[in-house]
């Protein structure tokens, strides 16, 4: 469903004259027209650049452009337009040629997703996406940071290096992240665990918010994040790119390189990323021990066996080591109170360091995937995905007698995934899809930690079946689906009796989910979609069997072996309006009602231990209501200014106990204004600037007031607003193209704390930061 734009099917190469020309001819005319993909209206001021000759042109009011006097040969043509991702094609010129381009203008790049591409193929779910251009221009960010400013998306952080996404209030066990079509395994249960994915290996990050997440496994309750590389372009030459950026805050270096080559025998792409950061700083002081080191590599292979069989192989390795603020490491509730009353965290030092000491995390994640897509006929497709993952997580604490080098938590988790789906298009616009997914997870603690594990050893088997049926009737699209899941968990817990014993548990769960979605095009330019979905999620191992002191949160956490599956009923209503390529509006309201919502509930008990008395938290079930509203609009003024506004509102309530739900994102607002220059700017006879853009952006996050004072250790942080600037340009030097960006975040060096950042009890969030980045494509 992503970027239909980039597919070759949309390009029409129509030979004009059929006369034969010799290879030396230099009087070829290349002309064409660029239209907006969604509205099919002509796009003016699109910069068209012929890479080999260095010639540039801009489209006129009718979207037309033309080059004359071009010699025959191989060329690369680049189309760029304000608010769009650059679009590159390869052409063999032998004669006069007309090229028609559909440019994915407003929709893919800015998150206000209007009706996508070929409607038959697309579900009726509201979604958002982040494209390659944004990934390249934000190469100082991790996966979560890239989607942070999308409407309806928030981040749970643990300092600056650890962050996990929240979509419409759902995170962790309730949000599935699909990396390359494979449900990301790992320790989803921990709020201090980031998704182990290198965003640089991806070209598109799509957030599905509707109830149609039913096709994806992993216990999601209505939202899914898809991280996907695009198919390797059918280009016979070796192509690649190098991205480098330096960020002042943390003195971070990020480098990424990508190489790819297509041949009909085998197409390949190699992607590698290295990152290194030292201590970040707030407006006033260093956040000691918040450095980060990361090294990732991914290999993608594609092969078309014949016209009907397409095979795709993907292997990636993710390795990182990151520090946790020393002053945020507490071991008693008194210390939290004490730390909170400090203006500067304990252990703050005046010096910057790249060192990463305890407390720290060391995480590696390996993925191998093989996918086969078989076209039994153009209207019947079978897909098979086999994947294996290994997630190895070690967390180091401050310990006595040199034990800081022995992890306090060490888990190895093997996951095997299989997926088999069958899609069939019937006459009269019926589409049927069915599939089966299996996941085996094997989680083992390393006993050398010398500490009783918080999460027990376990093995689980999940098996799911789904079927969806959609039909298009004139301007109405209907989709319905059903899903059955079975899960078997075998957990091996260690009792806290004397002597300690091993207790085995064997659980079975059956879950049923269903959905109905209707999308109606009121006019060509307006549509309304309604989604209603019912989904079930069984309790995970951490919710059932957690047992012990969770140092990071200074509380004793206890699972409950009697938990049952939670049931969620989610309704969404989305309205989209796209009157012209220069204006779009999308508004989405949602309501999710939970029966037996599983949450960590503070107990009326303070338990004495030898390390002091700790509050007890227990996994309990209640009935909950989460509702909210996401809004996004984008407008272009005079083909020079692009404005963007996004707003997210969310509220969560525990309806049984009549109290607010904890850890729900506060209301937030994001706006940006981009000014883009038209056409290339000539600096000298050899150097030209293209797509020069100036951006100013601002974010406002309200205080979370929907919370009772006794529900938190400390009052919720005040509202804050951040201001940012960005300048970016392409530099054309002969046939070399370079992209340069300069970014300033939190320019005013605002002192602030964020409700969803768990480090907020101890320290301010990061202060001003400047990033310079360069991208070279060849």
């Amino acid at each position, binding site marked *: 469903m992503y970027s239909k734009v980039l597919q070759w099917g949309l390009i029409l190469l129509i030979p004009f004259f059929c006369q034969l020309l010799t290879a030396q001819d230099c009087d070829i005319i290349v002309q064409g027209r660029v239209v907006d993909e969604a509205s099919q209206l002509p796009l003016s001021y699109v910069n068209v650049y012929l890479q080999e000759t260095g010639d540039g042109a801009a489209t006129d009011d009718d979207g037309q452009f033309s080059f004359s006097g071009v010699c025959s040969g191989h060329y690369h043509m680049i189309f760029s337009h304000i608010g769009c991702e650059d679009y590159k094609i390869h052409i063999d010129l032998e004669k006069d040629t007309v090229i028609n381009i559909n440019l994915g203008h407003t929709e893919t790049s800015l998150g206000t997703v209007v009706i996508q591409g070929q409607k038959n193929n697309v579900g009726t779910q509201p979604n958002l996406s982040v494209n390659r251009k944004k990934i390249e221009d934000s190469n100082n960010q991790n996966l979560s940071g890239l989607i942070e400013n999308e409407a309806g998306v928030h981040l749970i952080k643990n300092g600056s290096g650890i962050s996990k996404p929240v979509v419409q209030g759902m995170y962790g066990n309730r949000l599935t992240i699909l990396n390359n079509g494979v449900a990301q395994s790992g320790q989803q249960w921990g709020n201090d665990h980031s998704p182990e994915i290198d965003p640089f290996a991806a070209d598109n990050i799509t957030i599905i918010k509707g109830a149609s997440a039913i096709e994806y496994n992993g216990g999601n309750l209505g939202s899914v994040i898809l991280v996907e590389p695009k198919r390797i372009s059918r280009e016979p030459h070796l192509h690649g790119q190098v991205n480098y950026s330096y960020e002042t805050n943390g003195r971070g270096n990020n480098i990424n390189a990508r190489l790819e080559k297509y041949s009909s025998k085998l197409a390949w792409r190699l992607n590698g990323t290295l990152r290194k950061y030292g201590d970040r700083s707030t407006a006033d002081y260093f956040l000691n021990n918040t450095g980060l080191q990361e090294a990732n590599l991914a290999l993608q292979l594609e092969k078309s066996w014949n016209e009907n069989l397409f095979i795709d192989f993907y292997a990636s390795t993710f390795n990182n080591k990151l520090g946790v603020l020393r002053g945020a490491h507490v071991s008693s509730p008194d210390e939290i109170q004490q730390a909170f009353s400090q203006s500067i965290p304990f252990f703050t030092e005046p010096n910057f360091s790249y060192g990463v000491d305890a407390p720290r995390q060391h995480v590696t994640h390996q993925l191998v995937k093989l996918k086969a897509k078989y076209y039994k006929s153009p209207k019947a497709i*079978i897909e098979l995905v086999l994947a294996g993952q290994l997630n190895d997580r070690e967390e180091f604490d401050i310990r006595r007698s040199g034990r800081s080098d022995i992890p306090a938590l060490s888990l190895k988790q093997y996951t095997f995934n299989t997926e088999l789906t069958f899609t069939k298009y019937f006459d009269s616009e019926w589409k049927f899809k069915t599939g089966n997914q299996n996941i085996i997870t094997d989680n083992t603690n390393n006993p050398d930690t*010398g*500490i009783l594990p918080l999460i027990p050893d376990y093995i689980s088997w999940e098996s799911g079946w789904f079927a969806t049926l959609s039909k298009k009737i004139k301007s109405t699209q209907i989709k319905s689906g059903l899903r059955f899941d079975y899960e*078997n968990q075998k957990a091996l817990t260690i009792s806290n009796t004397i002597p300690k014993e*091993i207790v085995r548990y064997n659980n079975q769960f059956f879950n049923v989910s269903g959905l109905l979605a209707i999308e109606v095009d009121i006019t060509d330019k307006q549509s309304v979609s309604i989604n209603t979905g019912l989904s079930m999620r069984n309790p995970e191992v951490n919710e059932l069997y957690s047992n*012990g002191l969770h140092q990071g949160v200074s509380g004793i956490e206890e699972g409950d072996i009697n938990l049952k599956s939670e049931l969620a009923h989610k309704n969404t209503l989305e309205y989209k309006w796209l009157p012209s390529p220069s204006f779009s509006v999308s508004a989405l309201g949602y309501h999710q009602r939970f029966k037996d919502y599983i949450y960590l509930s503070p107990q009326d008990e303070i338990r004495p231990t*030898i390390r002091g008395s700790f509050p007890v938290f227990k996994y309990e079930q209640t009935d909950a209501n989460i509702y909210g509203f996401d809004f996004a609009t984008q407008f272009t003024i005079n083909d020079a200014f692009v404005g963007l506004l996004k707003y997210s509102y969310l509220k969560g309530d525990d309806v049984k106990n009549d109290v607010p739900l904890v850890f729900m994102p506060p209301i937030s607002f994001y706006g940006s204004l981009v000014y883009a220059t038209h056409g290339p700017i000539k600096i000298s006879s050899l150097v030209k600037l293209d797509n020069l853009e100036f951006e100013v952006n601002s974010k406002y996050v309200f205080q979370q007031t929907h919370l009772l004072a006794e529900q938190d250790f400390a009052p919720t942080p005040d509202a804050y607003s951040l201001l940012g600037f960005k300048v970016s340009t392409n530099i054309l030097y002969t046939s070399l193209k370079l992209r340069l960006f300069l970014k300033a975040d939190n320019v005013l060096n605002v002192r602030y704390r964020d409700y969803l950042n768990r480090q907020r009890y101890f320290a301010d969030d990061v202060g001003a930061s400047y990033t310079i980045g360069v991208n070279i494509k060849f």
Partner: protein
Amino acid sequence: MYRFTSISAILLASFTLILTSCDKDDPIIPNEEELITTVNYTLTPTPDNGSGVVVLSFIDLDGDGGNDPVIVGGTLQANSQYTGSLELLNEAESPAENITEEIQEEDEDHQFFFESTVEGLQVSYSDMDDDGKPVGLSTVLTTGAPASGVLTIILKHEPMKSAAGVADGDVTNAQGETDIQVNIPVDVQ
């Protein structure tokens, strides 16, 4: 469709096979050598007034969860002086592991603090690390007029020993991690 169902059946069969054939082995129960289960604070009257040795203790054999700890308080003589000596044990191991030795080896990184709600009861350090800063394994406890209350013993790991008041036994500026924090009832008669 036939091919689809047959592939599906094969996958399912192989998965069932894998699952039934690999039941997980029993986990190895970690050797919790770092655990502290027992704090014994032995108070010997000096000079010996015949009232006998008093041992205050806090014992939690099963760690953070499970059964409540066993706390043994004591009765001290009013207006007296005691020599105090602390002992930390891990009695979950057998034989019990002496954690006191670990503290002694890393005495620069550890310090005990004593707080009490008993009026007139005071604890002062009588030992020091290589830097001349107090540790608290050996102490002198003095009592005043008859009163009763709670004595809190705190062990900090990696405290800021040079911070204001810390060398005098004030925990306020000590920072560091709390390895031990126990409350023991004391009666002065």
